[in-house]
C-alpha cells in the first residue's frame, strides 16, 4: 500500500481513534484458536429481495442476499471493521492533489464461471454505476458527485479521476454496495437481477434462491485468498415478521441476528431465557431516527412552529421508551461511529431541545405555538407501518399535545408510504429511520439536511447548511474538516428550525451463537456481511 506518508499516518490515527471508541460493546473477544473449516452458517433476511442487482437496488435484503458473492476494489477488514483494506486491489495510491486514485489489481483472479478477471470488468462496473441515466441509489448516489471518470490503464490497473479531492472517496469505494461485476455477465444479461447473473469473485458462489423461502451460498473453491472461506456455505432464511424471526432464533434455527430490524430488549430477554449458548449484545446500526416537518405548507412553513417542535420533542424519552434505551439521543453525529468528527455529547446535551429538564424549552415552545395558533391546532401525524414506528408515533403525538398541537395518526403502508413522503403528502412524519450507507461524517448531512438531499422530506432549504456541508466535503486537511463539521453541527443545534429533526442514533440488540468465531459486525448495516473469515467451532 503506497500512499503519501501523511495520509497514511492520518488514516492510521483515524483507525486507532475509531477502534478505541467502537469496540463493539458486549461482544466478547474470541480466544486465539485455530480456525476450523466446514459448516453452514444460518441467518435470515427480513424480506424477499425479488431483484438481485446490487448496483441498482437499495434495500438491505438485496445486499444481504448477494454480499458474499462479490468483491469490491476495497473492503472493510473483516477482522477490523473500521479499517479499509484491499479486496480486488492489492495496492492503491492517490496523486498529490488527491484528484486521481490508481488501483493495482490482483492477478490471477477468476470469476465464478472460470473467466479471468481484469480491469475491463472494473471499468464496466463503474461505468454502469456512474452512468447519469442509470439509477444507482447507493453506490451511484455516493460516487457520482465525486467521480469524473474511470479508466483502465492496463489489464491490472484502474484509474479514478475525481472532480475534487474528496475525503469520502475511499470509504465510499470500500462500501458493500460498490461491488465489481463481470463485464461479460453484464453483456449477457443486461442487468444483475437474475439468480443466474450472480457471478462474482467473492468467497462464496450463489447456489440457490428459493423465492420467499431461502437463499444459499456455497464455498468458492478457487477464491483468490487461499484458505478462505472457512465455511462450507451460508444459508439465509427469508423470515417476515418479528414472531417468526424470534421463534427461529429461540429454536436454534439461526446462528446470528445481524439484520434490520434489530431485536428489541424484550425479544433479547426472551432469547436469553430460551438459549444459553448465545452471546447477546447491544450495537449501533449507523441509523438515525428522524422526525420530519413539511416546510412547504402550513403550519411548518413558519420557522417559529418548527422551532417549537424542535424544543418540545423529548429525545431522551423517545430513546428510553421506543428504543428501550438503545440509542444516542440528540446527537447529529455519533462519536461512537465517527470519532471526533462528532460534537462531544456533553455539549450536545446542553443544546436547546436537548437539555433536561425541559421545562424552560416546553414553555418557550408553548409560547411560540400560542403566538400563531392561540387555540392550538390539529395536525395529521404520518407514520409507515413498519417495525415499531406506530408506537413511536404515539409517543410523539403525546409530546406534541403538551404545546397544543393535537395530532391524529395517519398510517401508511410500508412501501407506498415512501411515495407519500417523497411527494410531500404529509404535515409531520413522526418517525423515519435513515441508515447511513458509508461510515462517514458527511453522510447524514447529504441525506437529510442539504436543500437537494433526497431524504430532506420537508424540503427545507438553508443555504448556510448547504455551504457548510459543501465546504466540509471538499476540505482535505483533516483538522480543518473536523472543525467544519463541528461548526455545522453547532449551527444546526443552535438555530433549531430545520425541518429534519434528529431524535437520535439508533442501536439495537443482536445475538450470535457462541460457536461462531471471528464474526465482527460492520460499521453500517450493509458492511461485513460476506462472512469470508467467519468459522464455526465444535
Amino acid at each position, binding site marked *: 500500500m503506497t500512499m503519501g506518508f501523511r495520509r497514511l499516518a492520518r488514516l492510521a490515527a483515524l483507525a486507532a481513534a475509531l477502534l478505541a471508541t467502537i469496540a463493539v460493546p458486549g461482544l466478547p473477544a474470541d480466544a486465539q484458536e485455530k480456525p476450523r473449516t466446514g459448516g453452514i452458517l444460518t441467518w435470515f433476511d427480513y424480506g424477499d429481495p425479488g431483484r438481485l442487482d446490487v448496483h441498482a437496488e437499495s434495500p438491505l435484503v438485496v445486499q444481504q442476499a448477494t454480499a458474499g458473492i462479490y468483491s469490491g476494489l476495497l473492503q472493510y477488514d473483516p477482522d477490523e471493521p473500521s479499517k479499509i483494506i484491499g479486496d480486488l486491489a492489492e495496492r492503491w495510491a492517490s496523486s498529490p492533489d488527491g484528484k486521481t486514485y490508481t488501483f493495482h489489481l490482483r492477478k490471477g483472479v477468476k470469476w465464478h464461471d472460470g473467466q479471468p478477471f481484469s480491469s475491463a470488468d472494473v471499468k464496466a462496473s463503474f461505468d454502469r454505476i456512474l452512468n447519469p441515466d442509470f439509477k444507482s441509489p447507493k453506490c451511484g448516489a455516493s460516487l457520482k458527485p465525486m467521480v469524473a471518470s474511470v479508466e483502465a490503464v492496463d489489464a491490472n490497473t484502474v484509474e479514478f479521476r475525481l472532480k475534487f479531492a474528496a475525503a469520502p472517496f475511499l470509504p465510499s469505494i470500500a462500501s458493500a454496495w460498490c461491488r465489481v461485476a463481470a463485464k461479460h455477465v453484464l453483456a449477457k444479461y443486461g442487468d444483475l437481477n437474475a439468480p443466474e447473473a450472480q457471478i462474482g469473485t467473492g468467497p462464496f458462489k450463489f447456489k440457490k434462491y428459493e423465492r420467499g423461502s431461502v437463499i444459499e451460498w456455497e464455498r468458492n473453491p478457487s477464491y483468490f485468498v487461499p484458505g478462505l472461506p472457512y465455511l462450507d456455505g451460508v444459508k439465509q432464511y427469508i423470515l417476515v415478521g*418479528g*414472531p417468526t424471526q424470534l421463534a427461529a432464533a429461540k429454536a436454534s434455527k439461526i446462528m446470528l441476528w445481524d439484520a434490520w430490524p434489530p431485536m428489541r430488549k*424484550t*425479544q433479547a*430477554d*426472551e432469547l436469553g*431465557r430460551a438459549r444459553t449458548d448465545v452471546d447477546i449484545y447491544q450495537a449501533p446500526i449507523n441509523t438515525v431516527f428522524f422526525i420530519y416537518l413539511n416546510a412547504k405548507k402550513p403550519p411548518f412553513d413558519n420557522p417559529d412552529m418548527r422551532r417549537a417542535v424542535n424544543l418540545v420533542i423529548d429525545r431522551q424519552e423517545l430513546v428510553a*421508551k421506543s428504543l428501550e434505551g438503545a440509542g444516542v439521543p440528540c446527537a447529529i453525529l455519533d462519536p461512537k461511529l465517527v470519532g471526533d468528527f462528532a460534537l462531544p455529547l456533553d455539549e450536545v446535551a446542553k443544546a436547546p431541545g436537548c437539555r433536561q429538564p425541559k421545562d424552560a424549552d416546553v414553555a418557550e415552545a408553548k409560547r411560540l405555538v400560542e403566538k400563531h395558533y392561540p387555540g392550538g391546532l390539529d395536525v395529521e401525524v404520518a407514520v409507515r*407501518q413498519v417495525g*415499531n414506528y*406506530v*408506537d413511536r*408515533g*404515539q*409517543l410523539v*403525538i*403525546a409530546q406534541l399535545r403538551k404545546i397544543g398541537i393535537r395530532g391524529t*395518526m*395517519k*398510517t401508511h*403502508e*410500508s412501501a*407506498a408510504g415512501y411515495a407519500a413522503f417523497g411527494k410531500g403528502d404529509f404535515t409531520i412524519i413522526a418517525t423515519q429511520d435513515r441508515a447511513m450507507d458509508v461510515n462517514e461524517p458527511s453522510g447524514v448531512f447529504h441525506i437529510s439536511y442539504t436543500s437537494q438531499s433526497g431524504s430532506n422530506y420537508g424540503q427545507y432549504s438553508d443555504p448556510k447548511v448547504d455551504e457548510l456541508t459543501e465546504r466540509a466535503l471538499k476540505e482535505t486537511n483533516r483538522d480543518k474538516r473536523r472543525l467544519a463539521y463541528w461548526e455545522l453541527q453547532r449551527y444546526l443545534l443552535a438555530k433549531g428550525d430545520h425541518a429534519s429533526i434528529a431524535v437520535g442514533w439508533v442501536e439495537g440488540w443482536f445475538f450470535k451463537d457462541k460457536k461462531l468465531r471471528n464474526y465482527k459486525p460492520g460499521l453500517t448495516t450493509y458492511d461485513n456481511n460476506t462472512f469470508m473469515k467467519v468459522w464455526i467451532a465444535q
Partner: protein
Amino acid sequence: MTGALGRFLRGQPLGAAGAVVVVVLILVALLAPLLAPHGPKETGFATYVAPSREFPMGTDQVGRDVLSRVIWGARLSLYVGLVSVVFGVTLGALWGVVTGYVGGAADSGSQRVVDCLMALPPIILALSLMAALGQSVNNVILALVILLTPTAARTLRAVALGVVAHPFIEAAEAAGASRARIIVRHLVPNCMASYIVLVTTNISYAIVVEASLSFIGAGAPPDEPSWGGMLAQGIQALETAPWMVFFPGLAISLAVFGLNLLGDSIRDLTDPRLRGGLG
C-alpha cells in the same frame, strides 16, 4: 322462575348464557366512559407493567392501561360489528330478496355483479380498499360492508326464491297485490328468521375479521382500542407481556361465544321445524 323467561332459561341454557354475555357487552360498551379508569389512547405510564392493583390488566408497549383499552374496545368492536353487519347484511338481504323476486334481467345482472365481487379474494379487497381510502374506523366498516353484502345477497335470494315458490304468493299476485306490497307483507316476514341468523353470526365474524385485518396492517388505526389490533400488537411480546394478549383474546372469545350461542338459540326457537329432538 316464571313464564316465558323461565322456559327460555330451562330450554335454552346455552342461549341464556349467550344472552347474558351480550347484555354485559352492550352495557360495558355504553358505560365505557364511566367504567374505564383512563382514556383509551392515554400514554405516559410505564411500559410492560404486569397486572397489578394500579393496572389490573397491566400496561402495553407504549405505556397504556390495558383494562381501559379493553373496556373502550367493547364499544369499538360492537360499533364496528353492529354497523357493518346491519348495513352490509341488510343491504345484501334487500338486494337479494328484491332481485330474486323480480327476476329477469335485474336478477341475472345483479347475480353477475355478486359473482364478480365474491370471486375476488376478500382479504385483497379489504387491503386495497383500506389503502385507497385510508385507515380509519369508518373505512373499516365500509370495507366490511362491501365484504358482507354479496354473500348476504346470495343467501337471502335463495331463501326468497324458496318463499316465492309457496302458493300464497301466487294467490296474492292473482288478487292484484303490487310487487312492493308482496315484498313487504309476505317476503320480508318470511325471510326474517334467516336474516336474524345471518346478522347474529356475522357480527362476531366481523369482529374477528377486523382483527385479521389489523394483523396485516389494514384494520383500524393502531392507536384505536380495537381488540383485534391489541392482539396483533400483543403477539410481538407474547412471552414478555402475556397479559397484552390474554385479556383482549378473552374479550373477543367471550363476545363471539355469546353472540353465536344467542344466535343459535334464536334460530332454534324461531324455526318451528327444529323444535324437539332427533329421537
